């Protein structure tokens, strides 16, 4: 298998994987970065959301061979000490129930706030509707995004 070089969370890493492997599985199984979650594998749930050059993408749909020099950021690389304003807002609003969807929610929310620092409720709803929360924490997700927006 070819060795593929990637830029993940600011570091250059190389992985030995089938070029068609989705980045999701490369992160989880080759690089042991398991904060990026598997939920559906078909772009429907958002648990696998990462940033590619700062934009939210679904890592289950992104073959590792397509990444090239683009910078990957995962939840592990969002902040050094878990103190990104969005992460802090998530704690402040005590959003999580089971917590499984939340890293994907946070990655989507962070990308939203980067492109739109003061989103309206409707914009939050539109941006966040690709991320399923089976536990139903949507109201708190919205509140956390608004809390973070004030701090960013």
């Amino acid at each position: 298998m070819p060795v593929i070089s990637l830029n993940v969370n600011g570091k250059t890493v190389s992985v030995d994987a089938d070029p068609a492997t989705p980045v999701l599985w490369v992160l989880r199984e080759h690089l042991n970065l398991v904060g990026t979650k598997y939920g559906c594998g078909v772009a429907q749930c958002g648990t696998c959301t990462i940033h590619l050059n700062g934009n939210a993408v679904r890592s289950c749909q992104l073959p590792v061979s397509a990444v090239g020099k683009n910078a990957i950021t995962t939840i592990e690389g969002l902040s050094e000490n878990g103190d990104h304003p969005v992460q802090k807002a998530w704690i402040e609003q005590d959003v999580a129930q089971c917590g499984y969807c939340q890293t994907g929610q946070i990655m989507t929310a962070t990308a939203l706030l980067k492109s739109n620092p003061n989103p309206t409720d409707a914009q939050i709803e539109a941006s966040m509707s690709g991320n399923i929360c089976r536990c139903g924490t949507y109201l708190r997700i919205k509140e956390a995004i608004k809390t973070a927006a004030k701090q960013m």
Partner: protein
Amino acid sequence: MEKNKTDYNRRAFLKSTFLAGGGMMISFSGLAKLSLEDKINPADLPADWHELTGYIKITSDNIIKIFNPNPEFGQNVMTSLPMIVAEELDVDWKKVVVEMGHHDNVKFGPQFAGGSNSVRMYWKPLRDAGAAARNMLLTAASQTWNVPVEELTTKAGMIYHEKSGKSGTYGEFASKAAGVSIPKEVKLKDVKNFTVVRNSQKNVEGVKIVTGKPLFGLDYTQEGTLIAMIQHPPAFGMKVKSFDASEILKMPGIKDVFTLKLYEDGFEQAGFDTRTFNDLLVVVGNTTWQVMNARKKLKVSWEPKGDTKDTMAGRNGKREVIVPGALESTATHFAKMKEYAAKPAQLLRKDGDPETAFKNAAKVLERTYNAPFLAHNCMEPMNCFAHVTDDKALIVGPHQAAGWIEPTLSKVLNLPADKIDMQITRMGGGFGLRAYGHTFVEAALISRKVKAPVKLVYTREDDMTYGIYRPIYTATYRAAFDANKNLIAFHVKGGGIPEHPIHANRFPAGAVDNYLAEGWEIPSNITIGAFRAPRSNFNAAAEQSFLDEVAEAMGKDPIEFRLELLKRAKENPVGKNNEYDADRYAEVLKLVKEKSGWGSATNKQYSRGVAAYFCHNSYAAHVVDIIKKDGQPFVERVTSAVDCGIVINPDAAVNMVQGCVVDGIGNALYGELTFKEGVPEKNNFTRYRMIRHREAPKKIDVHFVQNEINPTGLGEPPFPPIFAAVANALYKSEKKRFYNQPFSNDLQKKS
């Protein structure tokens, strides 16, 4: 202050030991009074189920570690259960370190998350444990300082003797306290003096969650772990006939392809040893992606398995159950259910003379309600890690009741239970599905076969099409009225595949003179099991919609009508075994009425629906407010009132109720799994519609009845009544009644 016997029985123990390096460790045990309901069959519980033990560790430098005994699947017990210990121990919550207890039914008790039982069953033992440890620390301090123990006080992990001005940390006395004998009786705090419990505390795993730490079963791995997946039959009622793996064995990373049996013939299954498919076709490889790809190229021929026999273990001896082999379809399910509904059924409860009352009625209202199979769709698909060798097993995974699986693993692997090390991970949802053990047994058998550590992974498609579903249900309700529109008789006849949904002793039983409840069941090969508030989740939907129509037929306000019935049930109850407390039931209705501004002109813009329900020893009522958005009805706002006794962690409890509301609206509107010739017709979120962010209400106001009753369930009770509150609000909005879930089907038909 409440005095409490620590009532440690013969089998239970309370032990205090010295910690290496100084400090104390106290293991505690006590009897939790359990009353289980719904899907939990007491006959299937381990004999020492009620034995309950756990740990507190206090080091000499005053680090307080409290182990959470019970599995965590989003109900937040990692935080709420240790809070209970911390309260009676009287320590500063900020200084407490919480750790998940290992699976160990001797040390930690039942370790069962389900039936909204976690707080209810651990409440007293955890209070006792905290109080006992505090008591021992005080004894140690009184001996050291040579002062009467009665003169000592504690606050936030410190011991004070006011007269002498002495003070010290718990840690200073912990080693000595470890040698103090265990108190036979402890004094518990007055609820009014609580400083930790009843105060909102943040999720102790919040930071780990938002930073993506490996918390879940699917995140667990070890050096050399292989990935395994099961290629299950495409339809319920099928099994593997033959397969050809020659091509995929050449694919990179693929290690092995084989079949094995989950249970040998005649294996006595306990209640949670469900087997969906007994012949497992397994693909094992290095990575998930490699195995996923190989499965696509695996050539398999399937055949109908025909009728099979399950041997079920039980306290009254084993019994055999025939599982029909025919391939089932939703259309035939409905036809069959109609047929059964017309036949005589099993009598579940009868008060008065309902037959005569219906015969003599001036008017009879009859309505039928239907609800489909539902998939659990936990966000984390089913998985389990296993490393089984000849003499021991390590099993790590997300499970609601590891203690129920361990005896099964012990039998299947032929290993003594003490050679099986089970570790419970945080679960990415459970909703009942993770109480069942087949995934764990499958992983263990696969590891034994390939002689390597293995992680069994279900893809989302596997998870959805290889499920243990919420059954399909139907119920017909009838109400009889006299010439003055008084309700004189009530009849419910419900059935399902393969179980009926009826809770015969729930409201309005007890409130109507002539009452009849009946149930019937149709066997099936589609596996079913507990789903958030089993049976209640359908009962409430149907009954509370029907009561709305009954109130309307009587020209009464739906809340006032229910309150009248509850008054009757309290003052002059009909029949025996009424499960609910009429006062508490009425209280949540009154609270939701007040908080929602029911009947007030300021809410005119909303189409409003109300419903209430009792289950899992708690009471919940909701008012749903619908508006029109782009011409479609939209649940804009919900007001909820809940009585679950003492609320341990208020803000987290609000989160739980909001989650129930969102989940309930989602399932009421969209949840549905249909079958065609045994094949589940949805296999991923592309077709299985889940409620999305934009479909959730804008506001969910949650109110708790304030009382000092010992805490009862919360993860389930608010869920069932939301279905009916939605249905009743939709009626106001759409001017027609909604009898069939999911309601979006009928909404679409209309537009």
